[in-house]
């Protein structure tokens, strides 16, 4: 028989489940969701078995713009060693994105999460935020913001460490 006590327990269970769902973000050490499942605009480069850096950025984000020259150099340097950088734009409008890509001509792949479904699922804490995955697609490092060369060198060291892992 349904009692007030059962109602209370159901409420408590609902609260616990609700809190769990609300905090369903990606965790370091866990597999990163497959990019192909998010209907991103643009073509994804082959990244199976490679060290991958996924960078969330936007055209209206100044630190994101500052990171582009460094990321281009990183891609050019480390791509032959098994590294792929994929930049995921969260711009809803295509025009600023297209103009930005035309102007900066990055050396890495750029796709657009126009519906912001992927970014809402991953929930990066700031713009830009990058996620470093090992060759098995496991998230090994998350880094928020871009503060110039110091951040860049730290990322580069972590990427090289993962490339050398067997």
């Amino acid at each position, binding site marked *: 028989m349904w009692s*007030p*006590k059962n*109602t*209370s327990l159901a*409420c*408590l269970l609902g*609260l616990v489940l609700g*809190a769990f769902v*609300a905090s369903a973000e990606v965790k370091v050490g866990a597999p990163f969701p497959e990019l192909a499942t998010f209907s991103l605009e643009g073509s994804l480069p082959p990244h199976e078995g490679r060290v991958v850096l996924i960078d*969330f950025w*936007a055209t*209206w*984000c100044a630190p994101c713009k500052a990171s582009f020259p460094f990321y281009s150099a990183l891609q050019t340097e480390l791509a032959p060693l098994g590294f792929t950088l994929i930049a995921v734009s*969260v*711009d*809803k409008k295509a025009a600023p994105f297209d103009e930005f890509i035309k102007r900066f001509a990055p050396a890495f792949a750029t796709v657009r999460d126009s519906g*912001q479904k992927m*970014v*809402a699922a991953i*929930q*990066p*804490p*700031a*713009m830009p*935020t990058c996620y470093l995955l090992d060759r098995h697609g496991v998230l090994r490092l998350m880094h928020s913001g871009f503060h110039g060369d110091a951040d860049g060198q730290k990322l580069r060291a972590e990427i090289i460490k993962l490339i050398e892992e067997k």
Partner: protein
Amino acid sequence: MKPSVLILPSILVACACAGGCSTTKLVRVQPWERATLADYTMRSDRDPLHTAMSEHIYFSREASSGGRGVGGSGCGCN
């Protein structure tokens, strides 16, 4: 219904409400949703004339000696 029966549900509802207040995700504009906020038109100093007028008013108000910058009497006449 006994009043004591309502105590536990009341506590749970109160906890849920308090938890909602403490969870920033419920009301926060997410980092990827700030395109409009980052727009140039959202800057308070986008119009030099408006900025100059605001500075002048701030300088003159309440006889604020010095205002934001150099010294003055607060008459707004300099």
